[in-house]
């Protein structure tokens, strides 16, 4: 495995960088790539450590070669689904465990990702129930993301014009399409062309294949005018000649047996996909263990002058100077940072004269779904069904031509079928003994299931602010949540469950379980919207190029700027928007406009 040839230089605190980027996930990595490729001198600050991700993930280790079969050490605890419903944040409070992690580690193989996600004990938050998953390390959540890489369309960008709710985006699909193309080509994406106006195709590499059950469901859905397509994965299946850090996908399987992550980096992650190549340009300085707690301001010009950061290990405070500052700390952390950055010039926080920072917070609704059995597959010889980075995606079908339901907007489904390394049906199969054992074996490959991802409406009343008392391990005020699903989400969830059942029934799949319960807010890990873009400085935080209306040299380039959540997973859109904004920024810097 290659490592970056250019060792990152020490951060020079005297120098004024062309750009300081806060956060190294999808947005921060993309900003580093684009700005360094324009020849700009860039400082990238990451709050967490630089991990040797290959050693962390050990993607091909067999469970029996791990002392606890992949489980966490005994003094560590992952929050269960139930804990989020019976308790309030901060969730690590009052526990005897030494380390507490979010629900994402409450699955198989959590030990491999425990260094990637944050310890809830160090990173508390308060307010309403919220399952907040955070990764603090180089690359952030891209190290373990679910890899579903979808485009938005004008059904999303112009949704407000279509149904009268909320705000349109200040861009249309035509503005961002060339940048989606750039992301596709630079990072690689696997998928099958479907020509859907509401779910535009990418420039796809080789698609994954479907199982027997999925072929059956696809054919049945086609009769209903709905589309099940091979998982559109942000994974290079044919390889990338321009990137020496990433291998193509070898369908090794068991991609889903752990939190995620890919130690050959066929799945996109920000370090190998974006940051290491950016380091190779010689234009990037990387500083990890740098927790930025303030964007500093030049009081004469009102512009951002740089950032203050705390060394995560020593606790010492440093400042760095930049001509521009780009926030990519994640939708919630970027909002927190802007609210923390108060000054005489910006008493409500930098970029927040509209009062919208932290508001219009939205994400995806999860929980409802269906689990079924394809009887014809029971007892069939074992096949390899998980040798692929994902199984299938079922595209949105509600409220496309006209409003068809009791709710507005739409949802899609992510699903999976067939054999996995661990037979999950072992837990649900009743009894014991030889018949039990045979049942587990015979049925293991015959299940198919899917769960919905629906658009949560952006509402001003859903927001985060700073808790007046609570602080994190470094003494920084923490976020307080004021966030609840509303009536539209509840109606949508009911329809998700009903339609999931109907689609399985139509396909002749025996229904085993219809899940109607909505998961706690935050489960989607798709938080969006806290600094939405728009043309009107009174109703939005950034313009279409993600520049703060009142601080043109401060950009927000993560999920914060989504105007609406859509029902598509956001990573690809975050990166396409960021690329577009950074191209614009480089141009403006050359012209001396920033």
């Amino acid at each position, binding site marked *: 495995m290659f490592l970056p040839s250019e060792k990152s230089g020490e951060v020079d605190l005297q120098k004024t960088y062309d750009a300081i980027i806060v956060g190294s996930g999808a947005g921060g990595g993309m900003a580093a790539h684009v700005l360094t490729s324009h020849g700009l001198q860039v400082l990238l600050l990451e709050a967490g450590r630089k991990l040797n991700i290959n050693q962390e993930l050990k993607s*091909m280790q*067999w*469970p*029996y070669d791990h*002392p*606890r*079969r*992949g489980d966490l050490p*005994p*003094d560590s605890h992952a929050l269960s689904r139930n804990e989020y419903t019976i308790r309030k944040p901060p969730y690590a409070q009052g526990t*005897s*465990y030494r380390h507490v992690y979010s629900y994402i580690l409450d699955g198989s193989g959590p030990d491999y990702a425990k260094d990637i996600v944050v310890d809830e004990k160090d990173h508390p938050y308060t307010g309403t129930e919220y399952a907040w998953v955070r990764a603090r390390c180089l690359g952030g959540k891209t190290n373990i993301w679910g890899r579903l890489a979808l485009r938005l369309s004008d059904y999303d960008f112009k949704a407000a014009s279509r149904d009268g709710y909320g705000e349109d985006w200040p861009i249309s699909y035509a503005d961002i399409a060339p940048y989606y193309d750039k992301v596709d080509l630079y990072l690689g994406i696997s998928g*099958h062309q479907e020509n859907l106006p509401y779910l535009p195709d990418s420039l796809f590499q*080789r*698609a*994954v*294949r*479907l*199982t*027997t059950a*999925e*072929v059956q469901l*696809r054919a049945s859905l086609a009769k209903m005018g709905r589309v099940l*397509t*091979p998982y559109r994965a942000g994974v290079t*299946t044919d390889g990338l000649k321009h990137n020496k850090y990433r291998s193509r996908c*070898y*369908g*090794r*399987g*068991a991609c889903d047996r752990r939190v995620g992550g890919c130690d050959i980096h066929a799945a996109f992650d920000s370090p190998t996909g974006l940051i290491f190549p950016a380091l190779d340009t010689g234009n990037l300085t990387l500083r990890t263990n740098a927790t930025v707690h303030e964007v500093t301001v030049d009081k004469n010009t009102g512009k951002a002058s740089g950032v203050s950061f705390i060394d995560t290990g020593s606790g010492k405070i440093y400042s760095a100077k930049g001509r521009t500052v780009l926030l990519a700390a994640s939708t919630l952390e970027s909002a927190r940072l802007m609210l923390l950055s108060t000054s005489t010039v910006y008493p409500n926080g930098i970029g927040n004269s509209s009062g919208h920072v932290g508001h219009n917070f939205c994400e995806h609704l999860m929980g409802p779904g269906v689990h079924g059995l394809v009887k014809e597959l029971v007892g069939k010889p*074992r*096949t*390899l*069904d*998980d*040798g*692929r980075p994902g199984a299938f995606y079922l595209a949105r079908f509600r409220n496309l031509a006209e409003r068809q339901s009791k709710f507005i907007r739409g949802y899609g489904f992510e699903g999976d079928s067939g*054999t996995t*390394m*661990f*037979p999950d049906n*072992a*837990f649900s199969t*009743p*009894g*014991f*003994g*030889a*018949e*039990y*054992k*045979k049942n587990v*074996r015979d049925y*293991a490959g015959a299940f198919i299931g899917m769960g919905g991802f629906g658009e949560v409406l952006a509402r001003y009343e859903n927001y985060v602010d700073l808790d007046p008392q609570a602080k994190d391990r470094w003494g920084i005020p923490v976020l307080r949540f004021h966030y609840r699903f509303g009536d539209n989400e509840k109606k949508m969830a009911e329809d998700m469950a009903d339609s999931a059942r109907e689609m399985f029934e139509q396909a002749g799949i025996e229904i085993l379980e219809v899940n109607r319960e909505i998961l706690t807010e935050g489960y989607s890990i798709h938080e969006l919207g806290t600094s939405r873009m728009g043309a009107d400085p009174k109703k939005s935080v950034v313009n279409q190029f993600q520049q703060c209306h009142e601080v043109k040299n401060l950009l927000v380039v993560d999920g914060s700027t989504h105007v609406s959540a859509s029902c598509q997973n956001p990573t690809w859109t975050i990166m396409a928007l960021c690329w577009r904004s950074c191209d614009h920024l480089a141009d403006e810097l050359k012209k001396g406009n920033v």
Partner: protein
Amino acid sequence: MAQEINRRELIRIGAGAALASQAGLAASVRPRFFTPAEFTMVDDLAELIIPADSHSPGAHAANVAEYIDARLAEAFEPQQQERWRAGLQAVDALSNKLYGRAFLEARPEDRLALLASMAENEKHPKTPGQVFFGELKAATIHAYYTSKIGIHQEMEYKGNTLLQEFVGYEVK
């Protein structure tokens, strides 16, 4: 009730292999948490839950009891260890009540009948024995299906290997 489970039923759930199993299978292992007698009980119970059959070896060969013992030895919450100790005592108490002897001294068919009574009401367990069955079964499943035998012989898992092409049906 356990006595009402007839022999045909026993053979159906346990098959011949489990009935033929001998108490004290794993005398050679030195447990870290369990007493030797407790360890033997767990080993026997696990083998009754996932027995060897013509397709693959069972929980005993997959060292399920050894794995459960190792995890309990390092358990962070003392309640977890207490639950297992109390659960095994409940099994012995039940055996004494029904058959007048401890579990390990009971006849193979009686041990199987006893486990069957513990497995009743699996979704809504009522007695201490039935509650313990849930924990015992879950631990056995976890240990067995993550073992070499469980993954390769029993489930014949084909993944975790390098492929040149994805397996399955191409979408046209």
